Every structure is written in structure tokens, then in C-alpha cells.
């Protein structure tokens, strides 16, 4: 390819990077101060002409200073490659110097947001399993330079640049298929995300109002709004439909923005995933770095024969906080799922084997806990409202509870062969997790007093990508798996990452 890019000496990003950095700075400032700006705008209309010109001057000065800052950020951002390490200098006042050795690099991803697409530069993200600080984002490189950088780093690692079998993708999702996927999403979840967003905005507005000492206004306004809603059945029905629509549109937007034009290519040691509408992303996923995968589907998706695969890689610190590190391929057909599994594991024999169900104590435990919850829920409601009417909610809640528990119990299973552990779980959705046993980091067996009576235990596998649990299996069986896992991990010479 291009030999002009050696990266032996320190080099800067493309000068266009200033625009990208400037855009990012403006966006960040706008995001934190938009409510304030809005209020200022209203005051602004009342100003005299002289005042207006001062405000304009102020805006120009601030924008100019930010541009200068963007320039400085750009000027001080320099990187090179030396001794199989990627070295980065950055910082205006507080200089920092980061170096990452190639074999620690987990992914090299390309990304293009709207600005980057307009001026035709690529953002290169270099990810490691380490702390957030060591993650590097080079904001603007020309395509050639970005490819050259990837290749340079790839030469020394297992990241391979050339797709296998020419350029035919393993999976490509058309607009129609994407529509299908988004219609069958979990709309409740989309709704919750939307509500969380609203709460975030509300908090922000409240903070600003509070700093002006005017929370009462906002509160009375909102209270009046809720008063109208209360006790009106038609409004409730209307609200329900609106919420449903919001959920639906939410799923639609979410799926379309992040997974538009999804295509997956198979390479020797990795998968390459391209997707995104406003922000285009290219993710290179090394097979060896994948800790475990989960194949998920729900009843409607199952009918349509589609599922999604979640790839989990090593993360440090609390796993739950790093949801964005999960890499997801949506809309996989059955044969594509099989293909991906084949590429990753030797799973053939296991799939046909009989499922090992978990002990029926699991069901008992869930019934006990849920009943307790329902009783508590009713007591709290009764204390607050002193109204017997609410007890009728049990008529609805109980069947739902029984159904969910039965589903959850039915879907919990495990299978084990020489190298691979398969664990199923889920309620409405079905998740099947595939874990290579030698990738387990440590193993734990837990037994509470009730479980002790039934001689069952929970088995918890700790992997670099988080915990995987088999609930409530016979202690004897669990012990066998425990001993076997240790044997497998301790006798393995393969690298787990």
C-alpha cells in the first residue's frame, strides 16, 4: 500500500482534524449549557441595541478562543510507532505520554460521525482491555493513512487486513430486514431508554431553574399536568397508545442509527463489522480476544428466523458500566449464526446433546421470592392508599408471575463437552451463551441454607468479560464441573486473550 506513511517519526493528524476537534468542543459545551443558552436567548430579546452588539462580540470572542483551543489540541496531539508500541503525546498544559504495546491492543476501530463524513476523514479508535485512560482516539486521518496505520499495527499482531474469500460479506442487512429487526425489538426497553432520557433533560432544566431559585414554577406546572391525567380512563388509554408508539419509534430510531447498513466480513483471525447511519463504525473483532458470545432471540424473532449475537471482550473494572464495549450483530439468520459459531468453536457434537436442566428448586426459589415481592407490594400500596381495590391487581399480577417463572425455568439449561460450556437463560427472550472453558478466570460455588437442604448449588464462572452463572444444580454434578473446569484451565497452554 502507501509507503509514505511510516509512523516512525511523530506525526500529527490531518489538519482537517481541527474542524473535528472544534465541532466536538462546541457540541460538548452546547450539551452542558443548552438550557442556560435558551434562557439567555429570551433575555436577549429584551436588550437594547448596544447590549446586543456586546453579546455578539462576546459570542465571537468565545468562539474564537475555542477555535484557538482546538488548534492547540491538534498541534499537541502527536503519535508514532516504535518498538512494536504505539506512542502518543497529547495535552496542552498537562502533557501526557501514552504507549501501548501491540499485543495489548484489543481492537482498532474506524468511526465517522457526521462532521467526519462531510470532510472525509476517519476517526481511529485503539482499544485495550485496560483502563479507560489508555483508550486512544485519533480524531481525523485520511482513509489511506488510517488504513496504513491499521496495517502497520496489524503486521505485528493477529489483526489481519485482507478479508477471506474476496469481498463477499458473511452477512449484509438490507433496509427491509433492518425494519423487521427493529419492529421485533423489545419496545419496553426502548421506552425505558426514552424515559431515562427525558428524566435526564428534566434534571438538567431543574438544575438551571434551581440556580435561579425558581423551582416552584416548574413544579406547579408539572403538578397541574399530572392532576389532569389522574383518574381519566380515556386519557389513560390514550397515554398507553402514545407510550407504545414512543417505544416503537424508539426501537426504530435506536436500531436504524446504530446498525444501518450492517455488514460483517470474515477474516483469518477476526471479524470486521461495519455499521451506522450518522456515525459509521468499522469494528475489527479479533477471534482470540472474544471471551464469550451470546446468541439471543425472542418469540417473534424466532418465527422470522432471526437472532442477534453479542460478543463479549475482556474489560477491567465493573463490567456493567461498560455496556458500550459489547459488540452486537443484529439480524442473523440461522445459518449465519451456525457459521459464526463454527468459526469460533468446535461445538458440533454438543449441540445435538441432551440439555441438562437445572434443579426444580430453582422454580421453588423464584415462586417464593416473587410471592414475597407481591405481598410486600400490596402491603405498601395498602398503607399508602388504604384502599382495598388495589388487591385486585393480584388477579393480573399472579398469572403473569407464574408464566414468567415457568418460562424462565424452562429456558435455564446447560451443556458441557470437552472444551465448551453452553448456558441457556431468559424469560421472554432466549439467550444462549457459549463459553470456552479454558477462558474461565476463576470459579465459585455458592450454597445458601435452603439450597443445602436440597443439595443444590449455584455455580459461577468468572470470565474476563463478566460473570456467567448456572443456577441450582445438584452439588455432585456441580463439583464434577468445578473440578473439570479447573483441570481444563490449569492444563491449557492457549492464551485466553
Amino acid at each position, binding site marked *: 500500500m502507501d509507503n509514505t506513511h511510516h509512523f516512525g517519526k511523530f506525526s500529527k493528524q490531518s489538519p482537517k482534524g481541527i474542524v473535528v476537534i472544534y465541532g466536538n468542543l462546541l457540541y460538548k459545551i452546547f450539551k452542558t449549557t443548552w438550557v442556560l443558552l435558551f434562557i439567555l436567548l429570551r433575555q436577549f430579546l429584551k436588550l437594547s441595541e448596544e447590549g446586543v452588539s456586546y453579546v455578539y462580540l462576546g459570542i465571537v470572542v468565545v468562539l474564537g478562543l475555542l477555535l484557538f483551543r482546538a488548534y492547540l489540541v491538534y498541534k499537541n496531539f502527536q503519535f508514532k510507532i516504535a518498538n512494536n508500541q504505539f506512542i502518543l503525546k497529547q495535552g496542552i498544559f498537562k502533557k501526557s505520554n501514552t504507549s501501548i504495546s501491540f499485543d495489548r491492543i484489543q481492537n482498532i476501530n474506524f468511526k465517522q460521525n457526521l462532521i467526519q463524513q462531510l470532510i472525509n476523514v476517519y476517526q481511529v479508535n485503539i482499544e485495550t482491555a485496560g483502563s479507560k485512560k489508555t483508550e486512544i482516539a485519533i480524531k481525523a486521518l485520511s482513509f489511506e493513512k488510517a488504513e496504513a496505520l491499521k496495517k502497520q499495527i496489524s503486521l505485528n499482531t493477529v489483526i489481519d487486513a485482507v478479508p477471506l474469500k474476496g469481498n463477499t460479506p458473511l452477512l449484509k442487512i438490507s433496509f427491509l430486514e433492518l425494519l423487521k429487526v427493529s419492529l421485533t425489538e423489545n419496545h419496553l426497553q426502548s421506552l425505558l431508554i426514552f424515559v431515562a432520557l427525558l428524566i435526564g433533560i428534566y434534571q438538567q432544566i431543574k438544575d438551571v431553574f434551581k440556580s435561579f431559585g425558581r423551582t416552584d414554577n416548574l413544579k406547579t406546572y408539572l403538578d397541574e399536568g399530572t392532576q389532569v391525567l389522574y383518574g381519566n380512563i380515556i386519557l389513560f388509554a390514550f397515554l398507553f397508545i402514545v407510550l407504545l408508539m414512543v417505544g416503537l419509534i424508539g426501537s426504530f430510531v435506536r436500531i436504524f442509527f446504530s446498525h444501518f447498513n450492517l455488514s460483517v466480513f470474515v477474516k483469518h483471525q477476526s471479524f470486521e463489522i461495519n455499521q451506522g447511519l450518522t456515525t459509521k463504525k468499522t469494528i475489527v473483532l479479533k477471534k482470540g480476544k472474544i471471551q464469550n458470545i451470546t446468541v439471543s432471540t425472542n418469540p417473534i424473532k424466532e418465527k422470522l428466523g432471526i437472532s442477534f449475537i453479542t460478543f463479549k471482550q475482556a*474489560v*477491567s473494572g465493573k463490567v456493567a458500566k461498560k455496556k458500550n464495549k459489547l459488540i452486537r450483530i443484529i439480524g442473523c439468520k440461522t445459518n449465519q449464526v451456525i457459521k459464526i459459531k463454527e468459526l469460533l468453536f468446535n461445538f458440533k457434537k454438543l449441540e445435538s446433546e441432551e440439555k441438562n436442566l437445572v434443579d426444580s428448586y430453582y422454580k421453588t426459589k423464584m415462586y417464593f421470592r416473587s410471592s414475597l415481592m407481591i405481598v410486600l407490594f400490596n402491603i405498601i400500596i395498602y398503607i399508602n392508599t388504604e384502599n382495598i381495590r388495589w388487591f385486585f391487581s393480584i388477579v393480573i399480577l399472579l398469572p403473569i408471575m407464574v408464566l414468567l417463572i415457568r418460562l424462565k425455568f424452562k429456558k435455564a439449561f446447560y451443556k458441557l463437552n470437552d472444551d465448551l460450556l453452553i448456558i441457556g437463560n431468559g424469560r421472554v427472550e432466549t439467550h444462549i451463551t457459549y463459553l470456552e472453558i479454558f477462558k474461565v478466570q476463576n470459579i*465459585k*460455588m455458592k450454597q445458601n441454607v435452603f439450597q443445602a437442604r436440597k443439595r443444590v448449588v449455584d455455580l459461577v464462572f468468572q470470565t474476563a468479560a463478566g460473570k456467567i452463572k448456572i443456577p441450582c444444580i445438584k452439588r455432585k454434578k456441580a463439583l464434577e464441573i468445578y473440578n*473439570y473446569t*479447573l483441570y481444563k484451565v*490449569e492444563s491449557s497452554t492457549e492464551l485466553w486473550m
Partner: protein
Amino acid sequence: MFENQQIDQLPNVDELLFKNIRKAYLKVVLIHYLLFSGVLLTGFFLLVQYKLQEIFPTYIDGIYIGLLLLFLLILTFLIVGFYRRKFAIRERDISYKSGILIKKITTVPFSRIQHIEVDESPVSRIFSLASISVYTAGDSSDDLEIKGILKTEALQIKEFINQKING
């Protein structure tokens, strides 16, 4: 070819001879607990003396008895729980078990250990005790920590594991 014949001969973690942690550590546990509950109780006592007495004077005795019972209950759990804390080291892994109501056993293979830490708290230093923690990759909150072994022993274990990892 891929059959799994070895499962019968695998070393069994159930047959391991687990070692108790040092008896002296019970004193450390109790001192920690007394300090903690002492501070809490004094705080509560002061609160009652100056604020709450007027509000519900009749219940005061009952509350004190309840607190005493709670104190004793936690104390028994601590003492019984102390004797349940055991560890074992094999050629290739380290195990730890504990718990009264929820019994737990964890094993960490040496080959997956990222780093090892030996810590001493101010109180345990009086009894020349230390704790040893091993960390694996990923969410480290659930790794293994053995509290209440002699500092010399902790350092020996650390050295032993380091040798096993590098050798």
C-alpha cells in the same frame, strides 16, 4: 477421540485439606467490630439524649434491648463465621471457603492471576497478621482474598505463586 475419560481421576476440590486461618485474627475481627459498633452506639446514645427522648420516651428501653440483641446476633455470626474461613493451596491453584448462611468456595488457578497483593491493616499489624488478595482479569470485585494469615506466611504464599507463574 474427544471423549472425556479423565473425569474420574480429576483432583477433587471436595477432598482438599483446608487450613484454618490464624486464631489471633479473631481478635482483629472483634476489635474492628467493637470499634465500629462502639462509634455507632455512642452516636445513637447522644442522639437519644439530646433529641429523641422527648419524642418517644416509652420505647427507649425497647430500642436499647433490640440494639443489644442485634449486637449479640452479629457477634455470634462473626465468631461462627470466623471458624468457617478456610483456605487451601495446591500445585496450580488457590482455594478459599467461607460463609454460614451462604456457603461459598472459590478457586483461582495460578495461571489466571494478574497480580497479588499483601495488605496489613493497622489492627492486624499488632498481631503481625496480613491478608493476601489475588486478582484475575475482568471484574475484580469477586476475586479471592484471604484475611488473617501470618505476614511471613502471606509473603511465602506470594513468592510461591509468583514462582509458579513465572516458572
